[in-house]
């Protein structure tokens, strides 16, 4: 019997700018390698929001992309919030990480409302935080990627960062946190893409999805070809 895991790619047309597709591809392959059947469902503004979603992935977009999706996001916000509270694993990178927070205040002072899944606030700044980044998390080990953002995100009380920054900037220039977590939702500025070089996070999302749907999850041993060298070299590159 095929046991499927449905991945929802949120705003795949307009919010996919920095290799966000790599996260979806990585999940789909690893779901298969773990013995399940991945199904990728693309959701774009105006579509009917599908049922039976097991994992949600979202990425970054250009200003024009964000303005195209922002009303739709507010519309499906309550639905996403409910799914987050029901422990659906989600990964939101960059632009959608910001909009999963309470608001984004641009450097011109305009306030773009977020959906408040994460208790975070983001402020547009003039400085662009850009370059290779390495953070560390107790749960996932070293997390290696690339950041490129001018919005700086600040976490409210009771929200934990995904990792502590070792190299790079992270959420903002004021503290050493990078990313945010709430239940099984992970927000982060890191791309590169994030999941292929940090498969412990990918497997965590898969594990939560499978457990939620089928009760138990037994990970299969995946041979991690090229991974350690790719991580090692990436971590040693100039910012």
């Amino acid at each position, binding site marked *: 019997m095929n046991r499927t895991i449905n991945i929802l*790619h949120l705003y*795949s*047309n307009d919010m*996919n*700018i*920095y*290799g*966000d*597709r*790599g996260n979806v*591809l*990585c999940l789909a*392959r690893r779901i298969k390698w773990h013995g399940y059947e991945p199904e990728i469902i*693309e959701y*774009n503004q105006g579509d009917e929001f599908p049922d039976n979603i097991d994992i949600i992935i979202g990425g970054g977009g*250009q*200003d*024009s992309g964000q303005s195209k999706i922002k009303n739709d996001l507010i519309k499906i916000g309550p639905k996403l919030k409910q799914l987050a509270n029901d422990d659906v694993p989600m990964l939101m990178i960059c632009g959608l990480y910001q909009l999963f927070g309470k608001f984004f205040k641009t450097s011109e002072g305009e306030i773009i409302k977020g959906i408040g899944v994460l208790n975070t606030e983001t402020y547009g700044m003039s400085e662009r935080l*850009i*370059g*290779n980044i390495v953070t560390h998390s107790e749960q996932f080990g070293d997390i290696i990627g*690339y950041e*490129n953002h001018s919005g700086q995100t600040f976490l409210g009380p009771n929200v934990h960062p995904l990792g502590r920054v070792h190299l790079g900037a992270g959420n903002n220039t004021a503290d050493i946190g990078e990313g945010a977590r709430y239940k099984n939702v992970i927000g982060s500025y890191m*791309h*590169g*893409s994030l999941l*292929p*070089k940090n498969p412990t996070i990918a497997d965590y999302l898969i594990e939560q999805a499978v457990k939620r749907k089928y009760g138990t999850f037994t990970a299969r041993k995946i041979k991690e*070809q*090229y*991974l350690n*060298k*790719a991580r090692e*070299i*990436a971590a040693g*590159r*100039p910012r």
Partner: protein
Amino acid sequence: MKVRFHFRYDLVLYLFNCPDITLAIYLRYNRHMSRPLVTILGKTIKSVAGLRGGGSALPGLVVEHIYPEFISHTLFDLPLGVVVISGTNGKTTTTKMVVELLEGQGLKVFTNRTGSNFTRGIAAALLGDINIKGKLDADIAILELDEAHAVHFVEKITPRFSLLLNVMRDQLDRFGEIDNTTNMLRRIADKTTDTVVLNREDRKVAGIAKSLDNHKVKFFGFDKSLSEFFPSDDDLHSKIQSVGSNKKADVILSKFSDHGATFLVDGNEVKTKLKLNGIYNVFNAAAALALARAILGEKADQDKLIKALSKVTPAFGRGEALAVNGKPLELVLVKNPSGFRLSLKSFDANNHATMIAINDNYADGRDMSWLWDVDFTSLAENGVQQVSGIRAYDMALRLRYDEVSVKNVETDLKIALDSFVKESKSRPMRIYCTYTAMLGIRKLLSKITKVEVVK
């Protein structure tokens, strides 16, 4: 006397490998030198830099600082004016084609041939071509310019013609966003006085026409039947059809085969053989033809144009054909996801040994995310023989997730290239490489085969 003293002093410093100090002294003392003096100075530095194997832009940089109007003053007198070619992909090849098309019509053309498409690269190229009085012996200048640099350039020098090829995802870590890039191209179009040639099939480029006078715009395009070969960024991850629009185009690519193409030129069918390979190079030929027709107007000799087009060979590193130990080797430069995707669609992987070399130096872009926006499944059947470059393991990991098998991974270009040449046996070789990886590979190849040396 003071100026002359510094001039010589600087040159001595320069000869003793102190270009930075030399530059600083120039900037401090010699801001307003005369044109002939600047010309001589620049030419001298150019030859000295050349002797030392220096980069192509340094002499231009010096000249640009001591005589900021150097380029505009030198280009101002050209009888047919200045032509700017810009866009994300295909600039170098298209520029080369346009130059050869116009030369075939008997024009003397100045161009920034080395692909150093920065303003100072143009200054450096000018230094090589002007006479001692600072006069350029040419009818027209055809310049390839990066979007970001073109914007500054057109503020100083008004182009008569421009050709805008496409807006695709380039190094976002350098230029910001695609919408910005479109605005840059729009500014080039606004500044152009005579004709703007636009890609009808690129939604963003074609959209620039809206804000221009109709008579100022010409299009090039392809027949709808070819649209599957030209994925746009918009349908990169979605099922949206790219919009082959119904606007009238001066030149349309209607069919292509291996080393041949059929164009509709002003409605008339023209068939030709081509030395260019790769679909996107052939599409660039349509762009070049449309631009050349716009420049030449009624004086265009169509038969000669097509004949010249059939003889154009690919530009340096753009599907350029080399030979190693008697075996063909193609170098394909890949700079961004759209270019990489187009190349993979253009070159058939069958019966070829494939190598991919990915560096992440500043000129390549440091962010590896772009590799995840390229679909590599077309390489799955034959596999990839060799992966190399600083980020070889990122590339190998990327291929693993497309379930493409990889034979060898080696970050060192020399070891990788040796093993690739040896293990590809009798198969023709193809290397996809980022910019600095290409420079490295060319340098290595130059020791074993004849390769054009970049000045």
